[in-house]
């Protein structure tokens, strides 16, 4: 039974071994001749001005996250659109033709989904999360 | 047989009193508070007396008064139902009368004793609450109802021990009492649960017919009844202060003296004795291991506490150890089948011990709160009533004819002497001999304890009331007899201590007296036997019985005489000499056999340390330290980088999760082969059957190797597990060691019966003829 997993084990071991091997290789083979210039940041000859970590305004993340949320949710529209005929059909679908009764199920379903999104949009709008002021 | 009667009134009245006093007491003034408190208890006493009258007159001996106050079921679990109700039969009648009337006397006494107390109403509120709970305890018609009362009295005891909570010592003593009692309570609860599971009922009235169920073996080869009895008895040990749970009672003396008298001498602490008598059917089950346990613990407690009492200097501590000791006597009574004797001692003890405590209170009242008896002496002439009533109580507890203690103690000694314990058939001759000697051991221990009792009580008496005063002048100036509300209960209790024994005179003594007198002197026994409890074992032959009585009396008189020679007229030189020459013994007794220290060392400190260690380990070392060292590169690196927000802990939490998951997987897969090598062996001639897996291992799941003769070579290999098991026909007679190895082919894990890691079982072996 567990013999079946032997290839997996081999693959894992190979993965670990491979990376370790090259890291070790770099350590052992690489020439180490440090000088002050090499140890200074960026090796570009000038001292850095301040920390490279700058604090961004939290608004930036906020907008980015909001964009991601609405973007991903709109992506749901594609599979829905592709399945719309089947969702709206009680019975089998042949080609573009519905052989049973046509229902509003698919349409209502998407209305509910969009409705929820609208509520969320209203919320972020009222909370002044959109915009930069 | 049964008749409805509003028994709830008996318990309700004290509860009402408690509610009034606790809610409005501060505004009412002391007069009204005492009126409410005493009135409520008096009302309860009257209703109770009326009920007992009806019980005794109108109903047959097995009859009872009942009162269902939860018509519908109170507790439901599956198909088991308990309707909460009260019941008064002849056993609870004895208890109810003791509780109500003695509580009344002590309430009256307390009105005098506590008159300068600012928290007067709170005190009486608690006292009433206690009385009500105690009545629920004794009137309950099933173990759960009794348990409610049981917890209630425990709570009140805690509240009253810590009544003067401004002093830290008192609050600590209260907490100690509470926690030690909780140990017992959980045993009690477990007993109830087990009984319920086994019988399907916990009503006293319904239990009797089902007791056969308890004879089935349940766990570790003992019958189920034994376990129920042990668990119930653990509860009784806690409440009635028996070894090893007695340590709270001496500390409980931190409470006001009326509390010590009512709760820690006369009523609450006897609840354990009552419960054992109430459920005697469970304790009577043979083999009588449970009875031997109860009586053995009782006897050792009686002797140990009595010896400690000899050297104590605090007035109330002497009485506290005396109470522990006397409770031991009662347990020997109920444990050796002499239920009547045990219950009767409970009654007589209630009189004289309550009296002794109230006398102590009276003395300490006069001494301005001083409790050290080495600073007293010669008080007799200042407080004659207290002195002479105390004299009577001391005679009673020492067991001098015709005082109450004589009859009840004698009955216990005779019962213990004549008791018979039955062991399982498999007992070998040595065991059988020990069992036959057991009653004599009980009797001997108790006789020794009785000697100590007589000695320490009379030492107390002589040191306090005779000789010259050893305290300060100021104290001497203030010495006075207590007010009438305190002396009246003393006198009433003294009368009880003289007379209450006369309703339980042994038949051999009343032999030949007129029948009406015999009816009176045997009243207590006829009241309880045979309707409620079985008859006590009796010594064979009148001569033996007389001899035992004479022996006990001589022992008591010897104790009194020794006390008189050492302490009459003050602490004599001889007493000091004895003390000095027996210094190690004295130190041992003075330090109460170092039991408190032992508990501290063995239980309290390790537990505290364990808690600290576990807390540290769990929260600090593993999280902050240990894992850092396990995976320094990983955890340390991330830790320093993310310390600010996450305190560096989260990675370690994750590691704990992963390690835990691995452990779960490991444990759960290893368990199957572990189960697989556990099983049972049966023999049919030379064929030995081995059923493995205890029904927990499915067929064909495991692969076995079996070595039937212990020669190191496997006789069967690669056999699949079968529910019906394996068998082997031995060619020769002899004893063989069997080694079984189970192997799980899916997980590649195995287990051999030869190496046990967790199992406490012996290696499998079999003897064939």
């Amino acid at each position, binding site marked *: 039974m567990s013999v079946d997993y032997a290839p997996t084990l081999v693959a894992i071991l190979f993965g670990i071994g491979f990376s370790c091997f090259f890291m070790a290789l770099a350590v052992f083979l690489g020439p180490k001749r440090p000088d002050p210039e090499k140890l200074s940041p960026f090796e570009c000859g000038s001292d850095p001005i301040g920390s490279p970590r700058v604090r961004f305004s939290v608004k930036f993340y906020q907008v980015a996250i909001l964009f991601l949320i609405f973007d991903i949710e709109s992506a749901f529209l594609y599979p829905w659109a592709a399945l719309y005929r089947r969702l709206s059909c009680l019975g089998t679908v042949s080609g573009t033709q519905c052989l049973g009764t046509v229902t509003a199920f698919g349409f209502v379903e998407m209305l509910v989904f969009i409705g929820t999104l609208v509520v969320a949009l209203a919320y972020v709008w009222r909370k002044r999360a959109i915009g930069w002021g | 047989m049964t008749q409805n009667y509003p028994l709830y009134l008996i318990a309700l009245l004290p509860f009402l009193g408690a509610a009034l006093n606790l809610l409005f007491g501060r505004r009412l003034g002391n007069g009204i508070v005492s009126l409410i408190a005493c009135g409520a208890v008096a009302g309860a006493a009257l209703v109770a007396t009326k009920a007992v009258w009806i019980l005794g007159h109108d109903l047959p001996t097995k009859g009872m008064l009942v009162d269902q106050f939860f018509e519908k079921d109170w507790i439901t679990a599956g198909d088991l139902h308990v309707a909460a109700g009260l019941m008064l039969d002849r056993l609870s009648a004895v208890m109810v009368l003791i509780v109500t009337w003695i509580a009344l006397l002590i309430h009256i006494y307390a009105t005098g004793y506590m008159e300068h107390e600012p928290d007067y109403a709170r005190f009486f509120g608690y006292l009433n609450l206690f009385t009500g709970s105690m009545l629920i305890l004794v009137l309950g018609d099933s173990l759960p109802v009794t348990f409610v009362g049981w917890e209630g009295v425990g709570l009140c005891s805690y509240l009253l021990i810590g009544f003067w909570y401004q002093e830290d010592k008192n609050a600590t003593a209260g907490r100690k009492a509470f926690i030690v009692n909780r140990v017992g309570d959980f045993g009690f609860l477990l007993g109830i649960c087990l009984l319920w599971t086994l019988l399907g009922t916990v009503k006293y009235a319904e239990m009797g017919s089902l007791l056969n169920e308890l004879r089935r073996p349940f766990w570790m080869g003992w019958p189920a009844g034994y376990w129920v009895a042990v668990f119930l008895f653990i509860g009784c040990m806690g409440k009635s202060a028996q070894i090893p749970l007695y340590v709270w009672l001496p500390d409980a003396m931190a409470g006001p003296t009326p509390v010590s008298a009512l709760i820690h001498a006369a009523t609450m602490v006897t609840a354990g004795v009552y419960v054992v008598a109430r459920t005697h059917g469970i304790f009577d089950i043979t083999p009588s291991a449970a009875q031997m346990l109860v009586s053995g613990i009782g006897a050792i407690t009686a002797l140990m506490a009595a010896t400690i009492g000899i050297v104590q200097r605090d007035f109330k501590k002497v009485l506290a150890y005396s109470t522990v000791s006397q409770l031991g006597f009662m347990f020997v009574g109920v444990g050796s089948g002499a239920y009547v004797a045990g219950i009767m001692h409970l009654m007589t003890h209630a009189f004289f011990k309550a009296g002794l405590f109230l006398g102590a209170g009276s003395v300490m009242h006069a001494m301005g709160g001083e409790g050290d008896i080495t600073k007293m002496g010669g008080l007799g002439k200042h407080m004659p009533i207290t002195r002479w009533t105390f004299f009577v109580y001391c005679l009673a507890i020492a067991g001098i004819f015709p005082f109450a203690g004589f009859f009840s103690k004698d009955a216990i000694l005779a019962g213990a002497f004549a008791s018979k314990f039955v062991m399982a058939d498999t007992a070998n001759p040595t065991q059988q001999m020990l069992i036959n000697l057991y009653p004599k051991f009980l009797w001997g221990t108790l006789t020794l304890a009785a000697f100590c009792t007589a000695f320490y009580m009379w030492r107390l008496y002589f040191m306090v009331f005779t000789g010259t005063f050893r305290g300060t002048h100021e104290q001497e100036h203030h010495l006075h007899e207590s007010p009438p509300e305190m002396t009246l209960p003393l006198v009433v209790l003294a009368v009880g201590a003289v007379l209450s024994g006369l309703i339980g005179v042994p038949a051999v003594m009343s032999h030949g007296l007129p029948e009406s007198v015999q009816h009176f002197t045997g009243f207590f026994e006829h009241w309880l036997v045979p309707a409620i409890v079985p008859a006590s074992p009796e010594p064979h032959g009148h001569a033996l019985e007389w001899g035992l009585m004479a022996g006990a009396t001589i022992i008591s008189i010897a104790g009194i005489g020794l006390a008189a020679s050492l302490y009459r007229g003050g602490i004599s030189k001889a007493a000091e000499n004895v003390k000095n020459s027996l210094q190690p013994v004295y130190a041992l007794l003075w330090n109460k056999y170092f039991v408190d220290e032992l508990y501290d060392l063995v239980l309290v400190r390790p537990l505290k340390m364990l808690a600290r260690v576990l807390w540290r380990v769990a*929260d600090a070392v593993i999280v902050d330290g240990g894992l850092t060292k396990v995976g320094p590169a990983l955890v340390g690196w991330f830790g320093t980088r993310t310390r600010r927000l996450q305190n560096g802990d989260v990675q370690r939490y994750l590691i704990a999760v992963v390690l835990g998951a691995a452990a779960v997987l490991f444990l759960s897969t290893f368990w199957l082969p572990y189960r697989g090598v556990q099983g049972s062996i049966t023999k049919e001639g030379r064929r030995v059957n081995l059923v493995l897996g205890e029904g927990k291992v499915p067929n064909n799941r495991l692969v076995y190797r079996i070595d039937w003769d212990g020669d190191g070579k496997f006789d069967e290999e690669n056999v699949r597990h079968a529910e019906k098991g394996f068998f082997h026909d031995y060619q020769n007679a002899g004893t063989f060691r069997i080694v079984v190895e189970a192997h799980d082919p899916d997980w590649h894990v195995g287990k051999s019966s030869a190496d046990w890691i967790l199992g406490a079982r012996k290696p499998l072996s079999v003897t064939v003829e």
Partner: protein
Amino acid sequence: MTFDVADLQNSAPLLLLTVAGLVLMLLDAFSRSKLVGAPYQKKMPAETSEAYPLPVAGSRGYLMPVTVLLLLGILAVVAWLPGQIHGDHGVFMYRDMLVLDRFGLLVSGICIVGAILGVMTAPAFLRAHGLEMGEYYALVMFSLAGMVILVMAADLVTVFLGVEIMSLGVYVLAGMWRKSQRSAEAAMKYFLVGAFVSGLLLYGIALVYGSVGTTLLSEIRSRAPVFASRPLFYIGWMLIFVSFLFKVAAVPFHMWAPDTYDGAPTPVSGFMMTGVKAAAFAGLYRLFAVTLGDSQNALQAYTGWVHAAYGIAILTMTLGNLAALHQESIKRMLAYSSIAHAGYLLIGLIAMAVVGDSARGPLLFYLAAYTVTVVGAMGVVGWLSRDLRGGERLTLDDWAGMGQRHPAGALAMTIFLLSLGGFPPTAGFFGKFYLFRVALEKPSLLPLVLIGIANSLISVYYYLRVITAMYFRAPAPSSEPASEPLSSTALSVGVLIAALLVLGLGLMPEWLANLCAAAN
């Protein structure tokens, strides 16, 4: 594509909770924008050393009564739905993704009652600490919706969905006290470990699906006897098991719990200790006691999880209680005590597998008793420990003499602590009583019960310490201003109801016990 309209009715609690959450979100968004209190104050009051600004009823004060009314309505629906179940089996919905049965409804009811009491005790606390945010109510609703999905789940996918929806709301709630570093820490820790464990859960589900080929629990149950011995299947279940043990804070997956329960705003801690735990136990019940552990099923013999649970129950009870012994902060003590209670509940779960269906009632009763008690206790903690300068005053020294300073609160706390310690006549007593009694039906569980009882004994010590401090100790003389209990009608009423429920269940446990026993 077909759709059964009856599903809408049968899943009404779930739908209503979601809609109610959305409505509350909108109400919050369209309320007057001025926020009262100090959420946007730049400096922490403790640093300014000024007295904390006196709380004024905010413009969102009406949200609490609205939420309570909505929840009561949903509770009524939950109470009505059992009448729609015919026969012994549940009604399957949404193509067998969810199931409507009495068990699920009862646990939903427990969660909702806990949430109602929590919501009643919350606003005074939130206002006093300057975090009166309308989102609180919406998030509680969404989290409840997740719990309902979890307890009604009939498919591994819905299980995952429920766990995530429930957790997401709670992550945010735990961190809503933005002025408090410890609240941020609590939320962050809970979120990080929670996310990791979600990964384990999903991985476990994937493995189970990979080996059995279905995610439907009923299907898995019927196929399990064949698959149970396969490592893939088994590892999958163990990962799922571990992730649920994390949610109920069982040792050794408990480490987040003390920090999180201690750091989160007190009403939120109460919600996490009760609702999340109840729903997660319902999940454990559905997944393990029913799907894997049916004692009628020969499968039970394969399920090593019982043995693992046995050890974990012992560890959880013991470690939780011992660690609680040493806590000086009452809130942290309750956090550890909540861990210990997870251990007692595990006894019920084990009993389900070993004893059988008769253990279901005790398990549910314990959950209900525990929920009411803890919500009440956390309400009192929030109530009495408010410090005039910001923070909370939670040490035993701070609570010394509370019996005189605030008799009503102290009395309520005493009742809750006695219930947690298992004293009659409180709900907690019967919880333990039923649980231990049913476990005693099998001698093999006797050691577990004995350890449980020994642990109850240990726990008495630290519960009693609080009571002793409140009644038997004079307040420590200190120059600092004493804590100033909140004054709020809703809070007092909420605590009062909780206390009455605790005592009521202690005096008349049978109606709930019957309900629990019948919740198949």
